[in-house]
Every structure is written in structure tokens, then in C-alpha cells.
């Protein structure tokens, strides 16, 4: 059975996340009225560079714990939302999905907010790195300093989620 939270080299499929959420709902599934999903795709350009492909690396056990933390934050903020989140690692070509998120809820407002919050938090605290291979070279992309206890970052993610 597909786990709700996962990180690995397999290609991502929304249908698998949706099925995992369905299964996790059990007898309560009929109460849900909304599923919102997000797919992050590898783009062919970035700040003026022509991207050829990406390589994602992760500290996998800590990444899974970060996903669990994000799930717990969502459960605290939006108790009626259930979340599935899969991240891919390894080489990814243009157009392939690096992350797939699905949020299911009785009401669409919470599903939208939680799905958006999840991707913002992944970018803030998941120990995952991408190396960009572009025309003329390659470089590690470095974004946020990961600090799961930074309440300002968490509030910013909530703001972006329009919660």
C-alpha cells in the first residue's frame, strides 16, 4: 500500500496519493467534499539559465520526520484535513514532478490552504537539496536555512496559504 508520506527515487503519481488518502479515510471518506493536489515540476529555465536537468538529494530519515512534522502542524491548524506528500530524489528531467501533495477535507477552503501550506513548509524545513545542471555548468541551489522551530517562518507559510 502506498504510504501517505514518502521520499524516494520512484516517479510520482497523483493517483497513488489520492488512493492512499482514500484508503486512510476509511469509513469516514464520505464526509470529504474536496481534494486539492499540487505537483511541482522541473522547469526548463531558472533565473536566466537554461536548465538541462536536476538532481535531488535528501537526508531521507530526517526528511520523513520533517514531512511528519508538517502533517502534525496541518492537523493542529486544520483538524479536518488529511494529507499525503511524496518527494522524489535522484535525477529529474524537465517536466517531471519533484513533489506531489494531496489534501482532502470536508470543505475546499481547508484543503486549498493545507495543500499550499505544505509546499511552503517543505521548502522551509525539509532537508532536501537540488543541484541544477544547466547549459555551461552546474550548481547546488540553496534556499532557506532549515529551522523547524522558527515561528516566523511558520507564520509566513500560513500567510501564504491564505489561512
Amino acid at each position, binding site marked *: 500500500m502506498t504510504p501517505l508520506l514518502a521520499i524516494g527515487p520512484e516517479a510520482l503519481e497523483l493517483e497513488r496519493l489520492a488512493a492512499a488518502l482514500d484508503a486512510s479515510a476509511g469509513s469516514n471518506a464520505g464526509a470529504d467534499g474536496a481534494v486539492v493536489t499540487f505537483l511541482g515540476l522541473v522547469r526548463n529555465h531558472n533565473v536566466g539559465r537554461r536548465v538541462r536537468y536536476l538532481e535531488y*538529494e535528501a*537526508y531521507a530519515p530526517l*526528511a520523513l520526520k520533517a514531512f511528519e512534522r508538517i502533517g502534525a502542524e496541518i492537523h493542529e491548524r486544520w483538524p479536518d484535513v488529511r494529507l499525503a506528500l511524496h518527494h522524489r530524489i535522484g535525477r529529474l528531467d524537465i517536466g517531471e514532478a519533484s513533489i506531489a501533495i494531496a489534501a482532502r477535507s470536508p470543505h475546499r477552503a481547508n484543503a486549498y490552504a493545507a495543500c499550499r501550506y505544505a509546499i511552503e513548509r517543505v*521548502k522551509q524545513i525539509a532537508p532536501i*537539496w537540488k543541484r541544477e545542471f544547466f547549459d555551461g555548468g552546474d550548481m*547546488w541551489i*540553496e534556499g532557506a*536555512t*532549515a529551522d*523547524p522551530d522558527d515561528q516566523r517562518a511558520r507564520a509566513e507559510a500560513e500567510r501564504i496559504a491564505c489561512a
Partner: protein
Amino acid sequence: MRVTVRLFARLRDITGASELARDLAPGATIGTVWRQLAGEFPALADYERSISSAVNADYARMDHVLHDGDEVAFLPPVSGG
């Protein structure tokens, strides 16, 4: 005591190793390990204020005291998603 150090992304490129073993005196912290590494690999100095750290696959602060067998990880700014 002996700890394993995990290094990721550009930190791994700088040190040339994804995993290192280090011997430490009792009472050593994550910060102790970092300063030791930064002495060996001066290019790490750029990351002084931007790294995160973890012990046994849990985020932990630089003043966290280590124990024999711990796995310490240094994480440059993340870029997942």
C-alpha cells in the same frame, strides 16, 4: 568518543566526503564538531550562519551535547519542493 558526521549537497562537495568519523572529547557539542571541520576545510566558513544541524536524524542546535556513536549531520540551506 566517536561520532559519524554526515554532509550534504555543497558541504559534501567541499569536504569531499558524505560521511566522516571524528573522535571527540567528552562534553563535545555539535558546535565542537563544526569548528573542527571548519578548521580543516576553510571553505565551510561561508556556511557559519546558514547551516542547520541534526543528531540521529533529528534537528538539534549547535550547543547539543554529543554521545558516543551519535550521527551528526550538517545541512546547508535547503531547496526541496
